[in-house]
């Protein structure tokens, strides 16, 4: 490189250029969430966590159009692990689900009430009677309570989980492949996401901003919604209307 060019380059390295603000990624996240992506077309104005989830899903739905590297870079920077994108493009092999579904320890309803650091919302009709199992998982964020109903062959039939969206909870992302239908729904005025079809994983950012990879449970239709500080997830062989009925009755 000629002398003057080299000197300019050295000058650039010696310059006290301003650094980008530390919270740039957070500001971009907020800006994205504040305005729904056109492709998501929600019928109501969901809160930002879910809006972002929908925007992310809309991106995922672009499939062949999308650019894995660029998108992965942006999602990674936004705090969503790049690996999640890869799995969207090649629908994942269902991970092995442990016998207890990885839902934590078997507890009684009273114990669950004591253990949960939030006010437990107990399912009633039209959920099918008292749950067969209640489990508490202290590992997930600040605790997750699972209500599980079994079928006549003692196989899991319906699963309702509740956890408190921790401080800083910003993203709920369902990974959906091309075979999964995704729809924005409303549960008693609060935003929700309905996923129907092929299996999907479940991701969210915990209080430390780390993406958490929830184990795939029943791998069936799923309704995900928020109420106050709680996030609910209902999985099972339900139609959208059936799931919404259970959710609205909670």
């Amino acid at each position, binding site marked *: 490189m000629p002398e003057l060019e080299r000197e300019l380059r050295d000058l650039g390295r010696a310059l006290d250029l301003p650094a980008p603000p530390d919270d740039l990624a957070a500001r971009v996240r907020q800006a994205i969430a504040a305005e729904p992506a056109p492709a998501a077309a929600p019928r109501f104005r969901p809160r930002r966590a879910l809006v972002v989830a929908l925007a992310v899903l809309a991106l995922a739905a672009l499939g062949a159009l999308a650019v894995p590297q*660029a998108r992965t870079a942006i999602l990674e920077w936004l705090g969503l692990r790049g690996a999640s994108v890869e799995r969207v493009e090649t629908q994942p092999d269902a991970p092995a689900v442990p016998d207890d579904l990885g839902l934590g320890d078997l507890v009684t309803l009273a114990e669950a009430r004591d253990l949960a650091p939030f006010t437990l919302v107990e399912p009633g009709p039209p959920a099918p009677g008292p749950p067969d199992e209640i489990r508490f998982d202290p590992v997930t964020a600040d605790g997750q309570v699972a209500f599980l109903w079994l079928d006549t062959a003692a196989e899991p039939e319906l699963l309702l989980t509740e956890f408190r969206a921790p401080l800083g909870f910003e993203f709920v992302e369902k990974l959906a492949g091309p075979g999964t239908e995704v729809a924005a729904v409303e549960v008693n005025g609060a935003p929700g996401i309905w996923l129907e079809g092929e299996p999907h994983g479940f991701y969210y950012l915990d209080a430390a901003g780390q993406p958490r990879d929830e184990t795939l449970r029943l791998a069936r239709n799923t309704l995900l919604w928020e109420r106050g500080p709680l996030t609910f997830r209902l999985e099972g062989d339900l139609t959208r209307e059936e799931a919404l009925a259970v959710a609205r009755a909670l």
Partner: protein
Amino acid sequence: MQRHQGIAFRTACLIAGNAADAEDATQDGFVKAYRALGRFRRGAPFRPWLLQIVANEARNRRRSAGRRAALDLRLAGAGPSGGAAPSPEAATEAAERRAELLAALGRLREEERLVLACRFLLELSEEETAAALGVRRGTVKSRASRALARLRADLGEEAAHA
């Protein structure tokens, strides 16, 4: 992105002329890039594309504010370290030379200053510089060589290296 945000922000700083507008431009540019990912051409290099979007935001801000780009470029307190420590005399001489260069850059026309700043201060490639400044690559080449010539003349190059 972590890698890209620094260079995108500094490019925006040069173009917008101040850090506050550069912050807004970088933020809005990244949001637009995120939304536009579907239109990103497969296989194209990512950085020029991102820089183009961010630089465009920065340019719009400067235009609407009606300000000239006059970024207050400052030399860091200490020069780049590493390697053998130069003698105090050599260090002083190098610092003087940098200050001189900086002043000469400031006397260039804006489009010439920007092309040199992108190419050499920020060490962008020709392609990235073209994307950031919204001009063709050939324009980057010709403008840069013209700017370098003007800079040399201004500095009285022969005298400086006598």
